[in-house]
């Protein structure tokens, strides 16, 4: 089967792929009993020849299952010429660092006539390794007789490298996340212990609540901090979730919006103060009230939040005026040219927060 002389020289260089690959013809010439008939036969041959997917056929009827066909993409990928590989078993592609467990899976698939897809480190003729996404399986005749095994090879070294890099970035993000949470916990401990020794426990607890809200808001930004902007909604939700554990009291109505990471701290603190205010005086004080939180990007890079409470107990403006927490937020926003307006409406407390910039245009 392989003793016929091959008249063409192996293709070299990138131009080779532009030339018609005549290996199917030669394969057919040496396998007269296996005819590729009609239009589908022509299509098959063209596909085999022109695909950039390296393809090998091996003959299981022969001793050590030798290769009987390789296409041009295979010779380009591996650097071996057709003459060098036809008649040999495929294992010459393996080398020192090829994973024996994967090789065993291939062998098992061959024995049980299964289809298998694996990634295996293979070696080119010049010894350079590449990651081969190998897809192999049996080919049967119309009578159901096992004729060949096909193997298709695809160099996925770049994909592997990108995957490894992504994996590494993910690992770093998780380490960072763990350390950050730990640091927030240590800061919390410091404040609690200080509050205890100075006998200002309530104040310390209030500070700690704010710090934890900040921690929750930031936590959501870690995975994508490297992109330079972060998604607003997860941060807002992370801050407010502890005040609505069943998720049925606060409704979020905002568009998907990416903001500058430093907007997150102010937004996070503002949401925390509004929720605290609602627990003390408003919609979260009893079991019935609800809150709708909307945010809308404004012209000129502005950002506006509307916090609207309803269905809660009839509220009265607290005697002491604005809660001290909301006062802090108002001052905080003013420093960056924003504002917090609020109104103790009979139907429920309403607050409107505006940021002059959220990072897109500036």
């Amino acid at each position, binding site marked *: 089967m392989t003793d016929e002389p091959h008249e063409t020289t192996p293709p070299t260089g990138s131009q080779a792929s532009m030339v018609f690959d005549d290996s199917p013809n030669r394969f057919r010439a040496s396998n007269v009993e296996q005819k590729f008939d009609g239009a589908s036969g022509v299509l098959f041959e063209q596909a085999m020849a022109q695909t950039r997917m390296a393809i090998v056929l091996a003959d299981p009827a022969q001793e050590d299952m030798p290769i009987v066909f390789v296409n041009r993409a295979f010779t380009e990928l591996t650097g071996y010429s057709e003459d060098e590989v036809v008649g040999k078993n495929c294992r010459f592609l393996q080398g020192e660092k090829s994973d024996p467990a994967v090789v065993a899976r291939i062998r098992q698939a061959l024995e049980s006539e299964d289809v298998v897809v694996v990634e295996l480190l293979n070696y080119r003729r010049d010894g350079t390794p590449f990651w081969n996404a190998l897809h192999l399986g049996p080919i049967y005749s119309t009578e159901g007789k096992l004729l060949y095994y096909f193997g298709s090879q695809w160099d996925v070294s770049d994909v592997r490298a990108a995957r490894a890099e992504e994996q590494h970035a993910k690992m770093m993000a*998780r380490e960072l996340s*763990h350390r950050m949470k730990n640091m*927030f*916990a*240590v800061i*919390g*401990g410091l404040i*609690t212990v200080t509050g205890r020794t100075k006998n200002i426990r309530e104040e310390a607890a209030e500070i700690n*609540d704010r710090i934890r809200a900040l*921690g929750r808001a930031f936590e959501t930004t870690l995975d994508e901090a490297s992109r330079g902007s972060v998604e607003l909604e997860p941060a807002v939700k992370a801050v407010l979730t502890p005040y609505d554990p069943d998720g049925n009291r606060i409704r979020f109505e905002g568009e998907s919006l990416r903001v500058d990471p430093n907007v997150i701290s102010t937004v996070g603190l503002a949401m925390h103060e509004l929720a605290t205010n609602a627990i003390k005086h408003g919609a979260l004080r009893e079991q019935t009230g609800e809150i709708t939180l909307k945010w809308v990007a404004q012209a000129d890079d502005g950002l506006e939040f509307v916090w609207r409470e309803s269905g809660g107990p009839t509220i009265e403006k607290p005697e002491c005026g604005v809660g001290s927490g909301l006062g802090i937020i108002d001052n905080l926003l003013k420093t960056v040219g924003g504002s917090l307006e609020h109104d103790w409406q009979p139907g429920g407390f309403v607050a409107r927060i505006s940021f002059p910039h959220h990072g897109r245009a500036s």
Partner: protein
Amino acid sequence: MSATNGNAAPVILILEDEAMILLEMSFAIEDHGAEAIQAPSVRSALEAIEKARPDAAILDVNLGRNTTCEAVATRLGELNVPFVLHSGDLVRQGELIARIGAEVIPKPSSSDHVASRAIALARETRET
């Protein structure tokens, strides 16, 4: 079974490698009228358990340098001591946390909350 009789203050073991959190947690336990046993490492926690069986425990999950609380959790399980896991590493330790199968309180949480959960577990177990 219990190291203390029904009326005595429950004894809560705290495994935590971060000193400030360990201190804060101890104060929170004491504020609830319970007794805190501080363990900054797996070894000291195991020693404390052998010395006197606690009524409940608070376990930090990730104790640095690939050390986790699993050995302590296993020992407490053998002794039927209830515990909560207090962790800031839920994503990476998810598998371990699922395997241990105890209540999880994510870090950072208020120490008062963590302490009251641990003490509640101690009382529940004592009553049964």
